[in-house]
């Protein structure tokens, strides 16, 4: 059974602090994310985005990015320039045009 192309939301994604090395050595990406989690009615949230990025955009060493359904400890996430800890972390419901930044703190100082 084929389904019609699901509606998507357009997100600006940025990787830095060394994380860009895992994503084709590219800092900025535009991602069209399905607006609901496949096979469910759950709206796309930050947790889904992390798994989506791991499966669709990441090129190497997934264990340095994702762990237990969220980002590996030591990776900071900003949603529209705000610490995602103030936005509900993985439960934040994404909107069209959101800018999500992932910064690794694990690389040398």
């Amino acid at each position, binding site marked *: 059974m084929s389904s019609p192309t699901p509606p998507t939301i357009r997100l600006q994604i940025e990787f*830095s*602090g*060394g994380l860009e*090395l895992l994503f084709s050595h590219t800092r900025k990406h535009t991602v069209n994310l399905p607006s609901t989690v496949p096979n469910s009615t759950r709206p796309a949230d930050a947790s889904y985005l992390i798994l989506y990025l791991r499966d669709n955009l990441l090129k190497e060493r997934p264990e340095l990015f994702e762990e237990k359904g969220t980002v*590996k*400890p*030591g990776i*900071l996430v*900003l949603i529209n*320039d*705000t*610490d995602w*800890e*103030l*936005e*509900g972390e993985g439960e*934040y419901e994404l909107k069209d045009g959101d800018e999500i*930044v992932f*910064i*690794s*703190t*694990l*690389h*040398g*100082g």
Partner: protein
Amino acid sequence: MAPKSCALCKKARAMLKRPKTGQQICRDCFFFVFETEVHNTITEAKLFSPGDRVAIGASGGKDSTVLAHVMKTLNERYNYRLELFLLSIDEGITGYRDDSLETVKRNQQQYDMPLKILSYDELYGWTMDAIVEQIGRKNNCTFCGVFRRQALDRGANMLGVDHIVTGHNADDIAETVLMNIMRGDIARLGRCTSIVTQGEDTIRRSKPFKYAYEKEIVMYAYFKKLDYFSTECIYSPDAYRGHARAFLKDLEAARPSAIIDIVHSGEAFEVREEVKATQKLQQTCQRCGYMSSNTLCKACTLLEGLERGMADAGITDRARKRLEAEGPAPENLRTIPFFRPTTTPGSAASTVEVAI
């Protein structure tokens, strides 16, 4: 989620949750509290005196880049009257240090501070690339660590500075506390949390970011759009530190105060006198004049091993004996230039002003 307002100014929108306190604060309040806490660390430990010449150990990475920015800001805001310099060590690692040095050179322009770069090549006659080519990837971090420590002191001496500040943050210190506990290294455990260290005739070193969380340093760099370089050293899989770091980050995720708690625990360990007594007395190296606990300093021993094609000589006692059995060092052996500590004009010792 409705935007929350800042817990400090009650006006602007909160943009960051502080790991130390859980407070939700806005960008401007964050800059202010972060800088003020570093200022408090500096004043409580009386790190500087007016007129001090201070070198910032600059790697181009996040910590030292933020440190340079904050030191410049505080020096102006609180009139510390410090002369600030950037000091970088070029280990000679292609594709790693050459890129990060470009960042340091941009920092020099942005912060308007004199920059001194000292390379392993000019000091020891060897780059890390050449060392790894000869010895492989075992023990290369030992060479790099010993060479860097001496190079920083010598670079500081060339600049005529009294003091080196480094970007070590609370996470780094907590990590070191854990590693020293796990290794049973009690002597180091007692020392690793001190904010200032000073050997016999080496330059004072201190850590103004001792209580600053890595998360906040990275957020500060991000919000200020500071220019830094981030990649792992291509030769350094320090597996042990890597595990300690991953463990610490897991702890932090469960309880953000864990990092500062571990730093405080480390501070609470006092080294008993018997343990201290086993640390060797300091003298100066016969060959290069640098401080040493033996007749030859660690760098000279390592360098002799490299030059004579027996790189293990500086690592294990057995290899050292094998080297000695081959006879004394040849006359024409390449050595490190002799270290002559300079006394600086107007250094802290000659001023009577109170410490900041």
